[in-house]
């Protein structure tokens, strides 16, 4: 019996009231979901319509839901960290618990919030913008989602089963080697990211092929909407960066499970090799997540200034320049680790060089707004807010990029403030703008402006309130990852202000949640399919779009094709039914349960490996192989939507449109 108790207390995290409360909440929420689905008899619907779907629009919605949940989880972590730091000598969290929380906060925000939110935007907008019926590999797209989902689930499970990782989001060995970090937490970290990382790599491949091969006739690369260009750049970086992460984590996993000596101190291991491999991925990762945000800004600025974007070609070339230069900067993450003057100089200069194309884009956005008729809708507000935040991030980034000065700033709160300015100001603002922008297209209704404005302003005040003081705290000597501090350092007021700012951002998040719930119930229905008076092809079809997106694949003549059609009067024909003769049966992929099962197999195998239950790992591995084999042998993977059904769908959708146009 005591053996069982020992096992259970090792298996389940015990002794912390916060975690007990979470246990109760998790059980209650799970029960609630199960009971609701059973009561409403929705299991079959869930399986058929969602879990087995290969439709990019539904996959986008699933990514979006997951990302918002993870923003909540990562945000809750942030609030706990800031609560602990609000006052000196605080004992709200223990040192170990604090370590776990900053580790999960960083990991979740980068890998399980930013990445899925970005993939949500990829899936929501790219096929519609290029006039395609789906991505190049819809089935692979579903696999990518389920790998992300189960990797994320595995990582989050560490919270209540086995214990969270506490080696920081960068997880440097030898600290994270078995000898110093014996618990399962680090295994969760490695396997959760490895599994979801495979999905991310596949998404990169998928969207590169989609953009290069699936564009509507007439859409040359120089007529491609800028968001798609940013997705292409981001996908190229994914392709070249994620393998390095896969290798770094796989080797660390081998060290921890098989006893190899890649990054150990004994037997000739070299921990610096992990640091290099990690940042060969980790630095480009910054560009992976920020470039699509740049793409969103380009779309939003152009739409809400009612002008075509300024300097299209320089926008494209600057995106590609960032894509390339982004690789040459990784060593600036360890200027202080003794790389030597010449190496540090090279990486200092290359890092500063990234600022040039970024500056070009910044000015292009400003010139697009110049003499435009700007509409201050939610997407535009977040875009405008991005500009000062990113300017501060850029200026402080150049300060950090100067290697000699970095010896002073390194690992201080200044650094924390800098990258939050960049990642919240650049990435989160962009994704939130993108979410508002494409929400009516995905769901068929808009998000409420009034609640959104509350969220926006609270967020802005909270954001500068939170990170502004941290720049000063960094100069005053406060290091990062410090779980408490004495009262006589002169840091008290600034820390308290920073924590209040964090709380305000938390309240802003609640407003966004309230906005979504309110809008689901009472949001303005989008009957036109074009609520913002948009410029690109996604606005030429009804919202939400039918399964096959375009009844007839459009032929493109201009960069802002939909705008051109509206100006030339061709768009008015849209309300009319597409000429019957032009309709052809549409070739579509069938739904499949295999992607879900692949994800599940990875989860089972991953969970077994976390606890060194290798029998379970083998079961998971066999499951993966069986899924691959089953798919390889499958031939009946697609079907045709008959013309009659297209006609019915279009008539049904167009009734709404005509109604909207005439009222």
């Amino acid at each position, binding site marked *: 019996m005591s053996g069982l108790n020992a096992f259970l207390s090792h298996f389940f995290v015990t002794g912390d009231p916060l975690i007990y409360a979470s246990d109760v909440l998790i059980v209650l929420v799970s029960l609630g979901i199960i009971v609701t689905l059973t009561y409403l008899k929705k299991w079959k619907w869930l399986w058929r319509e969602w879990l087995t779907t290969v439709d990019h629009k539904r996959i986008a919605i699933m990514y979006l839901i997951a990302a918002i949940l993870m923003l909540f989880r990562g945000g809750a972590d942030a609030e706990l960290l800031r609560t602990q730091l609000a006052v000196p000598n605080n004992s709200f969290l223990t040192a170990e618990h604090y370590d776990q929380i900053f580790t999960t906060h960083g990991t979740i925000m980068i890998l399980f919030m930013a990445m899925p939110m970005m993939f949500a935007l990829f899936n929501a907008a790219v096929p519609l913008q290029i006039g395609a019926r789906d991505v*190049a*590999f819809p089935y*692979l797209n579903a696999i990518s989602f389920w790998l992300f989902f189960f990797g994320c689930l595995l990582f989050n499970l560490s919270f209540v089963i086995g214990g969270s990782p506490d080696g920081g989001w960068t997880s440097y060995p030898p600290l994270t080697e078995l000898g110093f970090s014996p618990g399962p937490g680090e295994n969760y970290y490695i396997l959760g990211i490895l599994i979801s990382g495979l999905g991310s*790599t596949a998404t*990169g*491949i*998928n969207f*590169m*092929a989609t953009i*290069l*091969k*699936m564009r509507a006739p007439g859409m040359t690369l120089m007529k491609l909407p800028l968001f798609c260009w940013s997705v292409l750049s981001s996908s190229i970086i994914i*392709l*070249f960066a*994620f*393998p*390095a992460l*896969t*290798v*770094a984590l796989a*080797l660390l996993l*081998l*060290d921890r499970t*098989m*006893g*190899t*000596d*890649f990054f*150990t101190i*004994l*037997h*000739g*291991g*070299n921990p610096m*090799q992990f640091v290099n*491999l990690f940042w*060969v991925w980790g630095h480009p990762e910054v560009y992976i997540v920020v470039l699509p945000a740049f793409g969103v800004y380009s779309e939003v600025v152009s739409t809400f200034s009612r002008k075509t974007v300024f300097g299209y070609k320089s926008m494209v070339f600057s995106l590609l320049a960032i894509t390339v230069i982004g690789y040459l900067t990784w060593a600036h993450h360890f200027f202080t680790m003794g790389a030597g003057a010449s190496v540090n100089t090279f990486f200092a200069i290359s890092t500063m060089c990234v600022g040039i194309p970024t500056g070009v884009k910044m000015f292009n956005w400003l010139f697009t707004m110049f003499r435009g008729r700007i509409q201050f809708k939610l997407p535009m507000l977040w875009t405008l807010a991005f500009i000062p935040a990113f300017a501060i991030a850029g200026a402080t980034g150049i300060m950090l990029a100067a290697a000699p000065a970095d010896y002073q700033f390194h690992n201080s709160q200044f650094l924390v403030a800098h990258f939050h300015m960049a990642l919240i100001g650049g990435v989160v603002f962009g994704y939130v703008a993108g979410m508002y922008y494409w929400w009516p297209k995905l769901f068929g209704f808009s998000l409420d402006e009034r609640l959104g404005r509350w969220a926006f302003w609270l967020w802005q005040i909270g954001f500068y309130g939170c990170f502004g003081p941290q720049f000063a705290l960094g100069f005053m000597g406060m290091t990062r990852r410090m779980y408490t501090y004495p009262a006589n350092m002169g840091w008290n007021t600034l820390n308290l202000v920073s924590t209040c700012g964090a709380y305000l951002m938390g309240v802003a998040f609640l407003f966004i949640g309230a906005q979504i719930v309110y809008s689901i119930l009472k949001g303005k229905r989008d009957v036109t399919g074009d609520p913002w008076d948009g410029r690109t092809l996604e606005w030429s079809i009804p919202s939400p779009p039918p399964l096959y997106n375009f009844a007839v694949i459009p032929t493109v003549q201009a960069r802002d094709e939909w705008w051109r059609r509206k100006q030339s009067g061709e768009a008015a024909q849209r309300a009319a039914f597409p000429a019957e003769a032009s309709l052809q049966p549409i070739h579509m992929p069938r739904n499949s349960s295999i992607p879900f099962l692949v994800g599940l197999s990875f989860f089972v195998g991953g969970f077994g490996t976390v606890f060194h239950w290798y029998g379970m790992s083998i079961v998971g591995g066999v499951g993966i*192989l069986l899924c691959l*084999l089953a798919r*390889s*042998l499958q*031939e009946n993977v*697609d079907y045709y939507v008959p013309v009659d059904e297209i006609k019915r769908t279009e008539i049904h959708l167009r009734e709404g449109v005509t109604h909207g146009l005439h009222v």
Partner: protein
Amino acid sequence: MSKAVLTPKQGGAVHEPAPEYSHGGDVSILGFWFFLATDLLIFACLFATFVILRTHTDGGPTGSAIFDVNGFVAETFILLTSSFTCGLATFALRKGKRKAALSWLGATILLGIAFVGLEISEFIHDAAIGATAQRSAFLSGFFTLVGTHGAHVSMGILWMCSVFYQIWRRGIHPVRARKLFLVGLYWHFLDIVWVFIFTVVYMMGVV
């Protein structure tokens, strides 16, 4: 999807795409090239790690102590030959010769199994004399790099068996022609990686 059976290319039909490129296959093939790029980077990272750890033997066995010249030369010949037979299988399939395609594919599978068998026996021999992946960073790098290649070859063999079965039971068809072409690309890719392993790991190890 139509079930048209592939006919041998007629004299005049030079502009017709190869069977694997019809039926939207060119998108899949492009996607597969992208996948190979990611796989190439996996190997590049493993090579970089190996090269850095090559001299970190911690007083344990070095490359020249454990590498058997006859063994790795034989492995090289077998793998290069299998790449050739794999190419012949694709060639036969393009000419619509199902039996020839199956024979060459079968030969490729057997050569692949011989390669993996030799590699496993090499690993067992190394482990028996105390050269295990746990002994030193050099050996960790060696077993991981070469083992990753071996695991890829084994996956390739399983994949080829599946393609073999499909062409054998279901006949020649553009979709299956594409599958054979893709597994062929994968196989040639592994061959190229092996050339680097041969050079960087074995040749530089015994010199």
